[in-house]
């Protein structure tokens, strides 16, 4: 069974936020304006999260690109009363926008605060409307949304492989953020395949999961800084 996962090498990440922009346009996330941002209502499926450790002068700031971590034991899916959010067989935590009733239980249950809610009808500048991605639905107001690891690309990749009568190869399915990352800090693939790059990296000594002690078992795994490679 495939188990999709992602590795983010913090040594390589320069916090350029290209992934943020790529995700925004790939997934039809409406651009926030100043007002929405100040209200804390801007939507991002991936953000670069700053964390601060210690106090000056022994102070360190770290930056994590933070998408939904697609937990293997996700607290968010358990609480959804209508299964609008669910874990697929391949481990992707998906979201059925057309079913979500907007109770926001999942957002309160996710310990990583990565789920987003459409407080209002998303506002699109006229000139951006024609360039929206037709593979991804535009969400209405009142539903929860979040990173889906670009599942539409998985479908596309599958179709493509089938049409070409071959097995899927890693290049067939790459999420937008991984594809764009200029320093190649993000690596994507099948965690269950011992030969894949991700599963090799996951076994490295630098690998760690965010708030591992919670038992959520994230499938987005970080490589800590100071690896030197």
């Amino acid at each position, binding site marked *: 069974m495939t188990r999709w996962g992602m590795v983010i090498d913090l040594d390589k990440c320069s916090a350029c936020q290209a992934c943020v922009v790529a995700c925004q346009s790939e997934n039809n996330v409406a651009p926030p304006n100043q007002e929405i941002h100040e209200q804390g209502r801007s939507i991002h499926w991936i953000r670069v999260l700053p964390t601060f450790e210690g106090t000056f002068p022994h102070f360190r700031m770290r930056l994590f690109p933070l998408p939904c971590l697609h937990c293997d034991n996700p*607290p968010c899916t*358990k609480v959804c009363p209508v*299964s609008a959010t669910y874990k697929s067989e391949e481990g992707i935590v998906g979201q059925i926008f057309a*079913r979500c009733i907007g*109770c926001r*239980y999942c957002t*309160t249950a996710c310990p990583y605060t990565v789920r987003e809610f459409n407080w209002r009808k998303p506002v699109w500048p006229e000139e951006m409307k024609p360039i929206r991605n037709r593979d991804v639905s535009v969400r209405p107001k*009142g539903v929860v949304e979040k990173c889906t690891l670009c599942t539409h690309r998985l479908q596309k990749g599958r179709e493509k492989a089938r049409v070409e009568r071959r097995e899927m190869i890693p290049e067939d399915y790459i999420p937008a953020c991984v594809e764009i990352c200029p320093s190649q800090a993000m690596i994507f693939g099948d965690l269950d395949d011992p030969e894949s790059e991700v599963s090799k990296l996951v076994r490295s000594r630098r690998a760690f999961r965010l708030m591992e002690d919670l038992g959520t078992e994230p499938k987005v795994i970080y490589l800590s800084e100071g690896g030197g490679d």
Partner: protein
Amino acid sequence: MKVSEQDRILLKPVEQTTKRFWITAGILFSIWFIGFLAYLKQFYGGLGVTGLSRPTYWGIYITNFVFFIGISHAGTLISAILRISQAEWRRAITRSAEVITVMVLLFGVGNILIDLGRPDRMLNVLKHPHFTSPLLWDVTSITCYLTASTIYLYLPLIPDIARLRDHGTKWKGFYRLLALGWQETPRQKKILERLISIMAIVVIPIAVSVHTVVSYVFSMTIQPMWHSAIFGPYFVVGAIFSGIAALMIAMAIIRKVYHLEEYLKEIHFNYLGILLLVMALLWFYFTFCEYLTVFYGSEPLEMQIFMSKITGPYALYFWTMVACCFVIPFVILANRRTRTVKGTVIASIAVTIGMWLERFTIVVPSLVNPRLPYARGTYYPTLTELAITAGCFAAFILLYMTFTKIFPIVSIWEIEEGRESSLREVHERVKGYLPGMGGKSE
């Protein structure tokens, strides 16, 4: 069926409506209407009109939901316990308590619907139920509770409806329909009494389950200061606590405006006051357990929320809650001289406010301080949210008032029965308890 001259006063609210009633109703209706307009604004504009934002996804609607469901424990539960324990002083108060349950539950459910981002999709809960979600059990247990308590309200109402049918002047057809042909034959009475006692037993576990499940909505997540095993009983105790308080406020108002001093006596307030005192102590015990263990454990994330309640931005709410839920009621109710009608009502008002604040300080601080440090927000309810909340409260009171205009708010037949037979029965019963009195012992 005759209503004796003595009890005519109980039919008076149904038969006559004063100007004062219409004025009050008018004011309440206006408040409800403003709330309704505010809701329309939210329905069309989206939840953006509230003060909520990431990471505070829940605010006063959820607070109201928990609060209203809590209040609902006034009726059915208290009346069931009093019925089962054959507390004779219950007779005048059960009806007013049971009505609270049914009406307030509607607003508890209503607040969940108000809180939904897509209320138009609420039936998805039935179409695509997901059984691991506490919210689904919530829907289930609240529906059960609403059904059971409506039946439990209706059954003891039947003999009184029959009295209205034979006695009243208005809506004869309506009362005839609802009276189900009640003629007060011994057989009918026997069946009714049997049904009432079955329902009284059935509703108790349902009521307990309802608030336990409400607490599970919070404690099944792994959020700091929500993930607590004590939440189930803590919520149930709080619910009964606020329920008794609400009941006493309602009773005091009914007593005053309908001049029912003869029926709702000092002694009722005194007894309920003692019950409220016991609940205040229990509430304090639970709160103490909850906060002390958090404090000693001092997990950093929990401490952050703990401190925000004790000394931080939520300190005002927290300490007002402690004052309202414990200090004020304790001081008033522990003293026989202040446990008067006025005293208990003051204590009840304090408890009601305090319990609302309790719900608020459970819901909001945990959400404002999520585990990851980047999403921080503050939450202040907007005018829209306040208007909707006020509308809910106004509508509840309005519905309650309307009920008193359609049905007697004090159970006439139970009072009659009390006068006729229970004096003798109680006498016998007490004799039976005592050694050497010759009563039959079972």
